[in-house]
């Protein structure tokens, strides 16, 4: 059977017309579909190329695996989804064959069939369809519970095949571009071109885009019309040439307006080279445009509505407009003997043109009881048999339609009519305006009984819909509507007003909605509403019988309109069927929301340049190259790369950190602290500003002195901390945590500008101006003595927390005597371009004193030995200064500071709050896991009563045992108590200690 139909297809290879259309027959394009080689012409889509070779069968349906053919000619195509591949990495599934442009060597494959398209095993689903009613997955796969993950879901996913993603990384490049214009016109059919011309007349900056390869829209099909005395095609070419010659106009073909975002930001996806055989080097595959338009003209056209009748999904059944497009634009006849079923006049022109091209029109079955008008008259004159008051009762044919059985509607009942043999059935139910983008823009739609469709009523943005997308179908009116919208959208009015003289036959574009009338009993074959998701009239009826009334619920239950085509051809029919089933008016059923994207957009396009090394900025400090050369292992801290440790001779992290810690405690270490945030707070009210913001008292901090500062949020919880130096009467150098720098500056600016605008104070980020070189350890003073000029850094002259300007290695320096290690320590701040030079000089000078470079891991251990917290590690946004043991820092005499009032709440003073303590394991070799919970008693079974958790935990090479910090309810009252850290291997005993494990008197820091 399949062999017979295949050879029949080959015999039909002459479906290409001898002339006409927008293709170049001289350029033969070779391509394969499912391994079979074909030849098309330049300008073909995959769909037109296959149809030219007589191939209609292009896929298997989603659920029932029914043979499916090409239904449409544009992006609304629900059936012909294919995978196109150039190589193993360039594999794109789920492309609409109607939008895939042929190039020489194109390889396409059908989807959702096994072992082959002709003999598909999944077809059994169609026979078993009574087991797969609407919502079957809600009912059938409920139990056993485990089977869902193991069996049902994988099975359903495999069965619902929508192609496969390539396994290799995408080798293509994707670009993005921001663009601005006065008028963005989406859609380059007659309305869009007229709008762009009118807007450009006024000197506006215009962007005109169209999803198709060629501008013109319906005019590429409606070849009969005459505009301003020339053919429609000539008018298009002249208009586009005029726009192309205008430097204020950008023309974008193969560019889909896929999303309408607030304030007239429109997302466009441009496909640059999917249509070429040899990919141009360095050209991106796609470009995502983000267009900010002063005004938008939507000229998105309308989609022809299919008719719903039994067996309406066989290959060879197409939209009449699609057949018309294949003929006039691509020079392809979709069949040799066609029957046309229509609700209005539009299909008549297709019939006439097809007959002229040699396709026999067996009959036009018209749904209207009376058929009159210019186009029907022309058909009658051409000898075409018109059958009024018709309906369709069924079709025949396996992999291609072979016959249709019509019915006759008479006085509310239906009787069987003729059975007509045919190889193409062309249907037209009128048009559905494409209101997707309008709806995305939150524009208000209204139901139009005249159009049997929803059309735009009120715009929410500066937007105008023009032409068929708002139900204007007559060409003369479409052009006038477009021109008026374009002119009205331009910022400057044009001196001339465009008018168009059009010669075209008047037509009655009457639309039909819902299922066609059927005899009683109706055919047992399925009537498809949503081709792509295999939703039938029976599924919708079942949903309403089971109590679903809102279209949103029916949609989710039946999945109608939820496929990748978002129901472009099905939504209105589905609504009408639901409305009829519930016996309510259509507007009462409601309309589902249109969501972006209009057609699928590749992940690559959305990611653009943000992939690989450019996914996020990688911030590096001045000494990065030095650390790299030393084999440092880096860690990510926010966007920064920081040296974590410097392994020597095959050391692991544990060994390297143990060595680095001992070196700092016994001699001297050097550490890059440049990533710390730095904010210069300057102005006569700088001290007052700091007093209001931080918990500390700053009035009594002398110039040349520094203090550990703590910043709360207004809820009283610790937000950030850092050393703050007073470098002048009206100047503070504030340091923040590495990760907190931007948010602290933002918080400061917020208070400065909105709460205290009266203060004469200003903020400047200096984070990146300074390279910070920490030199820590008992020998650090000896290292620096020979280098520092202009500051006496002796113990007597320059105590802990001193700050001063001086010079080092000939460059200006701001020097701090500070310590985050617990040792005598200094932090050299030099302008960042000098950072590496000074670092190398200090490192060289320190060799005599055993200076050792160390990384963030050692820094963490050293500070934990001293019980210094890290905001965000030992605090979690719920710790007050008292919880962290930092009450001493609060300026008691201050009337107010950010968070002060919150600290007075009773709950903030509860003795049972979690407080920072040290936790020491009974076994000195056990290192607790950070995040582990703490319990008061041993051997608890879940649910346990847990009283705290571990926040920091390390092996301390200096102390010879592990150390940990944690927060424990009422922790400070538990000093000396034994607590338990429950772990999978059993409880770990810990003793509650002071958080300061090392040098509790601070003798070393003050050395």
């Amino acid at each position, binding site marked *: 059977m399949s062999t017979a139909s295949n050879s029949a297809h080959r015999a039909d290879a002459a479906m290409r017309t001898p002339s006409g259309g927008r293709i170049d027959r001289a350029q033969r394009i070779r391509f394969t579909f499912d391994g079979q080689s074909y030849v098309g012409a330049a300008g073909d889509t995959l769909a037109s190329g296959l149809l030219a070779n007589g191939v209609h069968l292009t896929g298997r349906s989603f659920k029932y695996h029914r043979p499916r053919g090409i239904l449409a000619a544009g992006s609304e195509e629900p059936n012909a989804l294919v995978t196109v591949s150039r190589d193993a990495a360039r594999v794109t599934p789920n492309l609409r064959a109607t939008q895939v442009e042929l190039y020489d060597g194109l390889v396409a494959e059908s989807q959702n069939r096994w072992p082959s398209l002709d003999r598909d095993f999944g077809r059994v689903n169609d026979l078993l369809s009574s087991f797969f009613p609407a919502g079957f997955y809600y009912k059938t796969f409920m139990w056993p519970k485990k089977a869902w993950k193991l069996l049902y879901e994988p099975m359903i996913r495999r069965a619902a095949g929508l192609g496969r993603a390539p396994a290799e990384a995408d080798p293509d*490049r994707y*670009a*993005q*571009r*921001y*663009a*601005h214009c006065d008028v963005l016109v989406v859609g380059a059919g007659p309305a869009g071109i007229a709008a762009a011309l009118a807007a450009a007349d006024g000197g506006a*900056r215009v962007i005109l885009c169209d999803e198709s390869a060629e501008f013109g829209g319906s005019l590429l099909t409606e070849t009969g019309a005459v505009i301003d005395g020339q053919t429609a095609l000539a008018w298009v070419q002249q208009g586009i040439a005029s726009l192309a010659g205008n430097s204020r106009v950008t023309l974008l073909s193969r560019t889909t307006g896929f999303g309408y975002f607030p304030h007239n930001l429109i997302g466009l996806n441009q496909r640059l080279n999917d249509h070429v055989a040899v990919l141009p*080097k*360095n*050209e*991106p595959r796609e470009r995502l445009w*983000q267009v*900010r338009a002063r005004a938008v003209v939507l000229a998105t056209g309308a989609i022809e509505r299919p008719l719903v009748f039994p067996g309406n999904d066989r290959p060879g059944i197409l939209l009449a407009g699609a057949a018309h497009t294949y003929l006039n634009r691509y020079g392809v006849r979709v069949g040799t003997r066609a029957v046309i079923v229509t609700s209005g006049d539009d299909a008549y022109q297709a019939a006439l043109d097809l007959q002229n091209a040699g396709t026999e029109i067996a009959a036009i079955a018209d749904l209207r009881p009376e058929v009159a008008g210019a186009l029907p008259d022309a058909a009658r004159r051409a000898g075409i048999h018109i059958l009024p008051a018709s309906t369709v009762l069924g079709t025949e044919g396996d992999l291609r339609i072979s016959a249709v059985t019509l019915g006759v509607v008479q006085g509310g009942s239906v009787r069987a009519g003729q059975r007509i043999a045919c190889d193409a059935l062309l249907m037209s139910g009128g048009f559905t305006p494409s209101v997707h983008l309008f709806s995305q823009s939150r524009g208000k739609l209204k139901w139009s009984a005249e159009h049997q469709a929803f059309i735009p009523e009120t715009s929410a943005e500066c937007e105008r819909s023009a032409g068929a997308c708002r139900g204007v179908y007559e060409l003369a009116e479409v052009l006038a509507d477009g021109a008026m919208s374009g002119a009205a959208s331009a910022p400057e009015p044009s001196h001339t007003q465009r008018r168009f003289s059009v010669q075209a036959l008047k037509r009655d574009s009457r639309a039909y909605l819902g299922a066609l009338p059927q005899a009683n009993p109706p055919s047992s074959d399925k009537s498809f509403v949503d081709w792509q998701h295999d939703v039938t009239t029976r599924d919708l009826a079942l949903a309403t019988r089971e109590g679903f009334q809102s279209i949103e619920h029916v949609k989710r239950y039946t999945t109608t309109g939820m496929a990748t085509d978002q129901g472009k051809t099905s939504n209105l029919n589905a609504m009408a069927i639901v409305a009829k089933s519930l016996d309510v008016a259509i507007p009462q059923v409601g309309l589902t929301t249109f969501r972006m994207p209009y057609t699928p957009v590749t992940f690559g396009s959305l990611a653009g*340049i*943000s992939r690989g*090394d*450019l996914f*996020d*900025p*990688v*911030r*590096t*400090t*001045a000494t990065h190259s030095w650390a790299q050369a030393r084999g440092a292992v880096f860690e990510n801290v926010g966007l*920064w790369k920081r040296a974590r440790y410097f392994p020597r001779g095959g050391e692991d992290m544990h060994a390297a950190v143990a060595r680095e810690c001992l070196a700092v405690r016994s001699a001297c270490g050097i550490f890059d602290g440049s990533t710390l945030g730095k904010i*210069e707070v*300057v*102005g*006569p009210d700088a001290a007052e500003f700091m007093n209001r913001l931080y918990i500390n008292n700053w009035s009594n901090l002398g110039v040349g002195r520094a203090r550990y500062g703590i910043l709360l949020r207004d809820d009283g919880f610790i937000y950030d901390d850092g050393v703050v130096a007073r470098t002048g009467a009206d100047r503070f150098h504030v340091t923040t945590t590495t990760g907190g720098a931007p948010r602290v500056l933002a918080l400061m600016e917020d208070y400065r500008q909105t709460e205290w605008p009266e203060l*004469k*104070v*200003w903020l*400047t*980020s*200096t*984070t*990146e*101006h*300074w*390279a910070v070189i920490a030199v820590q350890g008992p020998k650090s003073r000896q290292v620096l003595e020979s280098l520092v000029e202009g500051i006496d850094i002796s113990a007597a002259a320059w105590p802990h927390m001193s700050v001063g300007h001086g010079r*080092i*290695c*000939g*460059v*200006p320096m701001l020097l701090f005597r500070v310590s985050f290690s617990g040792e005598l320590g200094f932090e050299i701040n*030099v*302008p*960042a*371009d*000098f950072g*590496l*030079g*000074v670092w*190398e*000089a200090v490192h*060289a*000078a320190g060799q005599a004193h055993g200076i050792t470079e160390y990384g963030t891991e050692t820094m963490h251990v050293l500070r934990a030995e001293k019980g210094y917290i890290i905001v965000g590690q030992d605090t979690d946004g719920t710790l007050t200064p008292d919880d962290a043991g930092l009450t001493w820092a609060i300026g008691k005499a201050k009337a107010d500071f950010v968070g002060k009032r919150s600290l007075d709440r009773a709950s903030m003073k509860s003795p049972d709050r979690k407080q920072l303590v040290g936790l020491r394991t009974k076994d000195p070799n056990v290192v607790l896991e950070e995040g582990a919970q703490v319990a008061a008693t041993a051997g608890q079974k879940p649910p346990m009563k847990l009283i705290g958790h571990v926040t920091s935990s390390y092996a301390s090479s200096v102390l010879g045992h592990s150390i940990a910090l944690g927060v424990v309810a009422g922790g400070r009252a538990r000093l000396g108590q034994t607590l338990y850290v429950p772990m999978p291997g059993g409880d770990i005993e810990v003793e509650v200690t002071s958080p300061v494990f090392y040098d509790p008197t601070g003798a070393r820091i003050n050395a």
Partner: protein
Amino acid sequence: MPDVATRSSPPVPATEWMRALPPAMRFILHGDAAVRAAAAPIWGAAFAEEPCRAVVHESRATLWLGPDEYLLLGGAGESDLDVATAIEAALNGMPHALVGISHRQFALEVSGPHAATILSGACPLDLDIGEFTVNTCTRTILAKSDIVLWRTREDAFHLEVARSFSGYVGGLLREIALEFYGG
């Protein structure tokens, strides 16, 4: 050991359309119109009262960043400290904030016929010459990096980029420009 530490700016390889500009002297000046009036004669360049405008005088420039905030750009030849001291002297007693940030950022120039298009690959502003005229300047973003963007000629832009973002911004621009200039 060298007497004076070597100055090493962030490395950005030069291309036909992009180059790192020489090291510069930079200050942020906050203050009102009286402060600007007093600072201008010392600094050399005047301060635009119109938002987002740069004023250039010889080797000195002022860039409007906010109603009371300006970026001062000068050559790196002089001592920052001497210049700051001179300005501070002129502003004595007037509420203001002058902060040296010479090394906080570095400057890139993107130029040529595709300059605006390349920048539009990552900057959301309208860079049409009619909208973003010569000597327009503003803080903005380039993908995920903050920058100050200043159009110095019809086909040339001066970018002030935070120091640690040199690799990102340079890489980003090279990636965007690939389709115009090749690899």
